[in-house]
């Protein structure tokens, strides 16, 4: 029982019951209080495994604290505090419960010390993510929630099969060590984690979920979904060469879509995919500095993208629909504080010096500065510039575009502004004083992010990219902001594959109907024949072949009964 209270993830899970019963005014403090209590439990405990128990012959280690899960745990619990503050203005207790369940599941998964508990907690977090989307009142949210449920159901199935194969090969469940992708169990677990991080072909769930979730839900999903997958990869597959290519593909695909997507929350989700790709590729590198960079980038990306999604969520709250670049003109007059926060959030995701992402971006560049990893270094170096032009400049130039008749909207609710501002504050505070973050990393890191030979190239990169981005816009080379929806891989399974499924269903139903008709006709014919034969039994002495056969059969049966032994 003592062990149950030790895993910090159980605190948000227990708080779910309080939130479901609490009045509206107490729900946000309850969520924030649960996060603070969980943080206290986390920071109060020493490294190492706590008490273990056995269930069905398998060891269950409910708490195993080390430097790797501590940095992710601190990030997720701080994120929960921001979400709690951000959620103060709305009334959906089920959404609060879903957020706490998702956070509790994710944090529990970080700190458990055995594979089965990890899979159970991660699956709980996945189901809660789908519940969070179902809670949204935006158009088509129910269908998006259903799709997310399918993705996480598939992920859970892969996890279960992987764990079953892994344990059946004689491995210890209580040892959370490196797994091998080449084994069947390891391969299935790897595939499940690919879904969780949003690897190419499985990346569509994130933008689908974030763009259909409520403003609060979008912020929570941004912080607590993909980064659990990054932790899983860092724990089970460090130094896996496949991850280098997968991470690079995530960077390219994320940057490509972020440049063109009109719905800004989707664009933000694609940008998060690109930054997650940086973490994945660094884990694939596997060197101590690269692992530290991956963990640091995951930490800072959580707050940078929370700040972006929180600010965009404030726009969604007032507009009542998606925050589109094409519909953002005049926003600075209607929502001046939100527009100002958008500038900060945009700079934060672009890894501008002084913001948190810059502090870990420089570590990532240092970790990959080798001739053999030249292509990865270039992708990581170019990503902030792409995000500056695709997201920050697009948003700021659209929001500050004056209109003759600006839209009539109120500024976002105070709690939303406070939450978004707090996320930006975290970005700036970590960005200006990154040493405490470096101190949290598993590898001892003495790094000066503001050394002139690191600061100058970043300023140069962003400055030149920004100048060219503005020039392209002024000279009309950039595409104009028009309403547009882009096709992604989900168009395949929601379009042709869904149609093929529907057609195959219709065909199967028709085949089944034809089979039923045929079997009914055959049964009818057999019944008629039997009925005719039986009716002839009523007249056994009539002169016919049938009566002769009947008498012969009856005589034969009687003879057998009388004489056969």
């Amino acid at each position, binding site marked *: 029982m003592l062990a149950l209270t030790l895993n910090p993830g159980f605190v948000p899970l227990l708080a779910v019951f309080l939130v479901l019963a609490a009045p509206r005014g107490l729900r946000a403090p309850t969520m924030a209080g649960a996060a603070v209590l969980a943080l206290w439990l986390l920071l109060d405990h020493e490294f190492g495994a706590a008490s273990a128990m056995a269930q069905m012959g398998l060891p269950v280690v409910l708490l195993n604290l080390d430097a790797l899960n501590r940095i992710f745990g601190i990030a997720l619990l701080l994120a929960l505090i921001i979400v709690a503050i951000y959620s103060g203005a709305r009334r959906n207790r089920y959404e609060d419960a879903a957020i706490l369940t998702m956070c509790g599941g994710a944090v529990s998964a970080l700190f458990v010390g055995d594979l089965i508990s990890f899979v159970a907690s991660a699956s709980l977090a996945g189901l809660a993510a789908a519940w969070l989307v179902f809670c949204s009142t935006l158009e088509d949210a129910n269908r998006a929630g259903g799709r997310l449920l399918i993705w996480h159901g598939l992920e859970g199935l892969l996890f279960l099969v992987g764990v079953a194969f892994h344990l059946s090969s004689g491995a210890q469940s209580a040892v959370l060590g490196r797994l091998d992708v080449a084994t069947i169990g390891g391969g299935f677990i790897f595939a499940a984690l690919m879904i969780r991080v949003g690897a190419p072909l499985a990346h569509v769930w994130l933008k689908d979920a974030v763009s259909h979730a409520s403003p609060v839900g979008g912020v929570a999903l941004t912080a607590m979904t993909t980064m659990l997958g990054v932790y899983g990869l860092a724990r089970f597959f460090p130094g896996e060469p496949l991850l280098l290519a997968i991470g690079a593909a995530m960077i390219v695909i994320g940057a490509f*879509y972020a440049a063109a*997507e009109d719905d800004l929350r989707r664009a933000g989700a694609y940008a998060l995919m690109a930054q997650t790709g940086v973490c994945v590729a660094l884990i694939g590198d596997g060197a101590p500095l690269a692992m530290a960079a991956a963990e640091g980038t995951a930490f800072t990306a959580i707050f940078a993208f929370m700040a972006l999604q929180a600010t965009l969520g404030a726009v969604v709250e007032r507009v009542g629909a998606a925050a589109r670049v094409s519909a953002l003109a005049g926003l600075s007059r209607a929502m001046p504080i939100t527009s100002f926060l958008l500038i900060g959030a945009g700079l934060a995701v672009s890894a501008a010096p002084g913001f948190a992402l810059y502090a870990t971006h420089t570590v990532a560049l240092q970790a990959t500065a080798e001739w053999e990893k030249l292509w990865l270094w270039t992708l990581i170096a170019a990503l902030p510039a792409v995000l500056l032009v695709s997201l920050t400049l697009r948003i700021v130039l659209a929001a500050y*575009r004056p209109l003759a008749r600006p839209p009539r909207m109120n500024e976002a609710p105070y709690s939303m502004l406070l939450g978004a501002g707090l996320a930006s504050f975290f970005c700036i505070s970590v960005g200006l004083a990154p040493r405490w973050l470096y101190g949290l990393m598993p590898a001892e890191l003495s790094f000066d992010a503001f050394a*002139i030979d690191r600061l100058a190239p970043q300023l140069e990169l962003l*400055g030149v990219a*920004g100048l060219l*981005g503005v020039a392209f816009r002024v000279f009309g080379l950039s595409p104009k902001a028009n309403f*547009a929806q882009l*096709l992604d891989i989900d168009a395949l399974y929601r379009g042709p594959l869904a149609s093929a499924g529907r057609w195959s269903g219709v065909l199967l139903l028709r085949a089944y109907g034809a089979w039923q008709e045929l079997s009914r006709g055959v049964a009818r014919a057999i019944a008629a024949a039997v009925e005719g034969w039986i009716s002839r039994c009523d007249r056994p002495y009539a002169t016919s072949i049938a009566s002769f056969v009947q008498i012969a059969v009856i005589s034969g049966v009687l003879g057998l009964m009388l004489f056969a032994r």
Partner: protein
Amino acid sequence: MSKRPQPPSQSGLVGVAILFCFVAAAVGLGFDFAVRARGNFWIGAEPGGAAAIGAGAAVFSVLAARAALLILRRRPPAPIEEEGGDAGAHS
């Protein structure tokens, strides 16, 4: 005679953005060439290389946006013409 209100100019905003970016680029390039040592692991990491990467990233962003809108834009569904679509128009 009434005049339709004209949208205000955006030149001030663009000017501020250009100013910020120009200052960042100039300071970055200046310090990069003045302080950083040469002989890095490839030409992109040499002084001035970040500017080239930034320019490439800006071009990539524009090309990616154009290509995505050209190839991947979802076509709006064609309006369905129903028989008697104007039924009830006279009610």
